[in-house]
């Protein structure tokens, strides 16, 4: 049996066992496990746990604030990587301080900061808020959740150092970063599992998405290590895909669906589509991301293997990647229709966070198609369009995952912090800057890469000036994403202190609020809503008569 299929089978088996255990519990060991878990989360940490407060929402708040900071740093490193790709000596003057980065190291650092720092912390932070709310309980340990966020950020920092200099004093820095990452995520998993254990009802679908997304990282490690897939190029590529389909896609789907419903005030459009997203995320391979598994090898300090799949394996993975269109389209459609809520003009269309989510789900399908082409090209060994892979990979991060995770953070910000963002107009400005930077900047970069690739195929040795100019313009325009993230950070930090407090009549986006609406003649619901009425407005029918008037009886 092929190694690819064996690894997938172990991954699916782990998911099935987990599903059964959540429903059946650990029999006589349930109470022991719960007590041990709580001990590990709080008392085992000694005085360290007293460093943070345990107020409701403090854990989620710590994670989302740090996620915004990491997204800004990730954007800056990605911009620098794009710049050095067309001007390799731009940062040469820093070599006087012993720092001489290349385009590749900066791009890798940007990738690590964005994916592990920004996106992951946003998803975990939102999950720490969403899961207890969906399960009708409170988070098992707010203090541990908040404390672990700083440990996790430390791990991301170590990974950034490692992506610049993998070996310091004979120590593989990336492996240390991975160790801290695993430790922090284990604490988050235990925290969330204990929260699930104290639920008061059944587990809703978005909660399953978040829960399985968190656990998918463990399933991936078990599958990759037990089958030995981690040691060769094909297995490393597969582990990268499983992390993308499992943790990133499932967590993102759960968080986005919840946030789109909460922020728009509409009910989730379809439970069936959520089910399709859940099963699709588990049983297919998402093509978003890099077209090789080098990152997995780097993170675990092992040699990166060459990809060389057999024809059978190629058929299996190509089929599973094509099948991933089902969960992608299901998530995209469900989110869009939930946000619109049957109102064709769009409900609350300018709310902070909703616009980013809207942008992300619209970009998801075209980027999926591009990623699918790049991945099938790589697994078949054709390598005809591998020159486009870096830009497509950045698109999957900055046009899909960042807007969706950041949008969810902004949409849930009032619920998590108890305050509104400091400025709605600043959030809107940041959105336009970011969407323009990501769409135009990366499209110009893609065009530049396509020109270079075409010239290489044609055997032209002279570099194209047009390609160079497009690359310059692309990197300059992408800089606005960094500016947008700075604005978002400022907005979120100021909002913590000066944002309007929720519950003081500030929840509604519109300043117009009508308590009653006098209905004199037949009209549409849309017209009533646009006149300033809300969901709680009382519609009062006013009687009228076409009879001729007469003197009033006294």
């Amino acid at each position, binding site marked *: 049996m092929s190694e690819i299929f064996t690894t997938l089978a172990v991954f699916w088996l782990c998911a099935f066992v987990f599903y059964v255990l959540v429903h059946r519990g650990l029999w006589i060991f349930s109470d022991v496990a719960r007590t041990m878990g709580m001990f590990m989360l709080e008392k085992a940490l000694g005085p360290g746990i007293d460093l943070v407060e345990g107020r409701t929402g403090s854990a989620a708040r710590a994670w989302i604030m740090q996620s915004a900071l990491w997204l800004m740093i990730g954007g*800056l490193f990605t911009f620098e990587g794009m710049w050095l790709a067309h*001007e390799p*000596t*731009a940062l040469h*003057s820093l070599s006087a301080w012993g720092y001489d980065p290349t385009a590749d190291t900066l791009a890798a650092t940007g990738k690590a900061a964005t994916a592990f720092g920004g996106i992951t912390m946003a998803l975990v932070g939102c999950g720490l808020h969403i899961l207890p709310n969906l399960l009708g309980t409170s988070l098992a340990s707010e203090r541990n959740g908040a404390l672990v966020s700083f440990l996790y950020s430390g791990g991301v920092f170590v990974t950034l150092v490692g992506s610049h200099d993998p070996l310091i004093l004979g120590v593989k820095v990336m492996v240390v970063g991975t160790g801290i990452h695993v430790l922090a995520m284990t604490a988050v998993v235990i925290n969330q599992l204990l929260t699930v254990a104290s639920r008061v009802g059944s587990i809703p679908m978005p909660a399953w998405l978040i829960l399985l997304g968190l656990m998918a990282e463990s399933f991936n490690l078990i599958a990759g290590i037990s089958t030995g897939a981690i040691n060769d190029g094909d297995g490393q590529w597969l582990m990268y895909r499983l992390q993308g389909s499992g943790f990133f896609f499932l967590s993102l789907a759960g968080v986005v669906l919840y946030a789109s419903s909460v922020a728009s005030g509409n009910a989730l459009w379809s439970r069936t589509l959520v089910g399709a997203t859940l099963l699709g995320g588990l049983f297919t391979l998402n093509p978003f991301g890099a077209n090789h598994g080098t990152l997995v090898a780097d993170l675990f300090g092992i040699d990166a293997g060459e990809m060389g799949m057999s024809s059978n394996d190629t058929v299996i993975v190509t089929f599973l990647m094509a099948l991933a269109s089902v969960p992608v389209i299901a998530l995209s459609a469900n989110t869009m229709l939930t946000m619109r809520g049957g109102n064709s003009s769009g409900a609350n269309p300018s709310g902070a966070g909703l616009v980013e989510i809207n942008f992300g789900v619209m970009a998801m399908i075209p980027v999926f198609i591009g990623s699918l082409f790049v991945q099938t090209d790589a697994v078949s060994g054709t390598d005809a369009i591998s020159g486009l892979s870096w830009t497509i990979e950045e698109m999957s991060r900055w046009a899909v995952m960042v807007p969706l995770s950041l949008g969810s953070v902004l949409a849930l910000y009032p619920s998590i912090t108890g305050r509104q963002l400091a400025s709605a107009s600043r959030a809107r400005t940041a959105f336009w800057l970011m969407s323009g930077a990501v769409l135009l900047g990366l499209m110009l970069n893609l065009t530049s890469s396509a020109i270079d690739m075409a010239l290489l195929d044609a055997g032209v040795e002279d570099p194209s000036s047009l390609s160079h100019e497009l690359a310059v313009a692309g990197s300059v325009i992408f800089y606005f994403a960094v*500016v947008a993230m*700075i604005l978002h950070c400022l907005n979120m930090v100021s909002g913590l*202190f000066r944002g309007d407090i929720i519950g003081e009549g500030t929840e509604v986006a519109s300043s117009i609020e009508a308590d009653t609406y006098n209905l004199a003649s037949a009209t549409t619901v849309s017209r009533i809503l646009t006149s300033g009425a809300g969901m709680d407005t009382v519609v009062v029918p006013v009687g009228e008569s076409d009879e001729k008037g007469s003197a009033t009886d006294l």
Partner: protein
Amino acid sequence: MTNDDGFLQGENEPGASKVVLVGALVSALIFMVVYSILYPGQDYPVLSDFETFGSLTGGIWFFILGAVLGMFSIIATMITEATRE
């Protein structure tokens, strides 16, 4: 000690003060550009004696300067908001 001169300090900050600050920063940048026009090919005094600053070439530094200013503004916001009365 009492202040008999009648010195007063308001609590609110006028919005126009930010305009003055931005204007001052832009002026500083213009003066730097004027220096390089008036004395082409000559390094900045003192600053250029440092190896790193002496070889700052390429437009990327303007962008990095902007990002560094942004980061400092975030840190400044955190400090001022946390210590605000």
